């Protein structure tokens, strides 16, 4: 069971997860994937496309309970999640989308979040009127608005152009710094992992398992420093070996 104490902790031990293929065979997606994060920490799970990262996220979010193993999420508080797709309600304005998910958030909090994510002008817009980048930002605002103890980010910047993705990473890094929560970021992008994480878990190709864990000494200092380059090199080496 989850360890007693004041600090929230996430412990995931997924011993196995398979899908039934169309021909009735069982295809393993996750082999033996364990990791843990403490309150205030951001963990990046980095692995090739299709290695089972999104499946893992669905397990962490409680959407998929059909797996072998155990997942302990913080007992208190809520989950905030940004899916790969924005998944906003198209018939609701951006601020209504946030309010529906986080009825307890005050107007001031929502306004501050929209400002932090550069969405202030778009509060009353409908998702269909916005670019994918803005819709993603709104999805992030929704995830933060619930004041999560566990924040799950599933490739939140995939398919955005590089400058926009960097800008959003900076905005996100600031928000993550300002909250005491556990953040799990799933990505295939090394730069993104280095820009946001305290710990990086390198995953193998499907079926996914952890092939290496890297602690980032000065988190969110960016990719261009000495450490960033060293980490990138280690990830490459692990992947080559794995």
């Amino acid at each position, binding site marked *: 069971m989850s360890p007693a104490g004041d600090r929230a902790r996430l412990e995931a031990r997924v011993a196995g997860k398979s899908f039934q293929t169309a021909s009735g065979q069982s295809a393993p997606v996750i082999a033996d994937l364990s990791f843990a994060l403490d309150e205030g920490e951001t963990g990046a799970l980095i692995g090739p496309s299709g290695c089972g990262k999104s499946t893992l996220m669905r397990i962490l979010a409680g959407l998929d309970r059909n797996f072998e193993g155990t997942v302990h999420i913080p007992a208190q508080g809520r989950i905030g999640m940004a899916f790969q797709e924005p998944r906003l309600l198209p018939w609701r304005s951006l601020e209504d989308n946030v309010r529906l998910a986080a009825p307890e958030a005050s107007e001031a909090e929502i306004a501050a979040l929209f400002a932090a994510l550069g969405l202030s002008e778009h509060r009353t817009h409908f998702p*269909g009127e916005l670019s994918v980048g803005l819709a993603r930002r709104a999805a992030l605002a929704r995830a933060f608005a619930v004041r999560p103890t566990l924040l799950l980010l599933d490739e939140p910047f995939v398919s955005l152009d590089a400058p926009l993705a960097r800008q959003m990473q900076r905005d996100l890094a600031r928000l993550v710094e300002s909250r005491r929560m556990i953040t799990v970021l799933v990505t295939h992008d090394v730069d993104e992992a280095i820009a946001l994480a305290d710990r990086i878990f390198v995953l193998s190709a499907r079926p996914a398992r952890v092939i290496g864990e890297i602690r980032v000494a000065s988190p969110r200092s960016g990719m261009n420093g000495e450490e960033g380059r060293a980490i990138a090199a280690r990830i490459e080496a692990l992947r080559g070996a794995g």
Partner: protein
Amino acid sequence: MTARLISLLALLALWQTAAHFGNPRLLPGPMAVFATMKSEAASGALFGALSATLARVAAAFLLAMAAGSAIGYAMGRNALVDRVADPWIIVLLNLPALVIIVLAYIWAGLNEAAAIGAVALNKLPIAVVTIREGVRALDAELDEMARVFGFSRLRRLSHVVVPQLAPFFAAATRAGLSLVWKIVLVVELMGRPNGVGFEINVAFQLFDVPLLLAYALPFTAIMLIIETLLVQPFERHVSRWRPRAA
């Protein structure tokens, strides 16, 4: 809008011309029909028939939509319910309206419940099939989002499910209303002592075409007005969030 108006006026002109050259007993002109309409309205008979028929339309329509939505929702959500109920729906879809009406009158008697029930039963399978289609098209990703963010059952229904089903409700309403009012006239003609359908039967017995048209036209006009002022604005309302270009 103007094109529609001109087209409608052209129809009137064609009617007038045809009446002018034809047998006035078989095809009276617009003025003759209007005069009959006026005298029927003055006696109160026209409004009595119209309100009786509209009440039946409303009752049968609401009954069919409520039951059809519930059944369609259950069939769309649950594969077993769908497999069990689907053959029944197909039978009902293909059963002629007249057969259902006659059986309803034989089994339940010539009463209001049989009349409204028969009309609702005719409309039911179309509502079921349309709503089932809508439920099958529900976005699983939005459903997951609602689960992760802990939406209550009520919140999920009213903000996630119903908005997705609204266009299907609108389609079922539009198709249903025009079907229901036509069948209501038939049940009235066959077994009710009042209503537009009853009056049309009287006119048929008397070979009185002005009387027939004096009841049929105002009723058609009312249904047209309901369609334009209620159904179409509802459809626009439920799809207002869709980007215009798409």
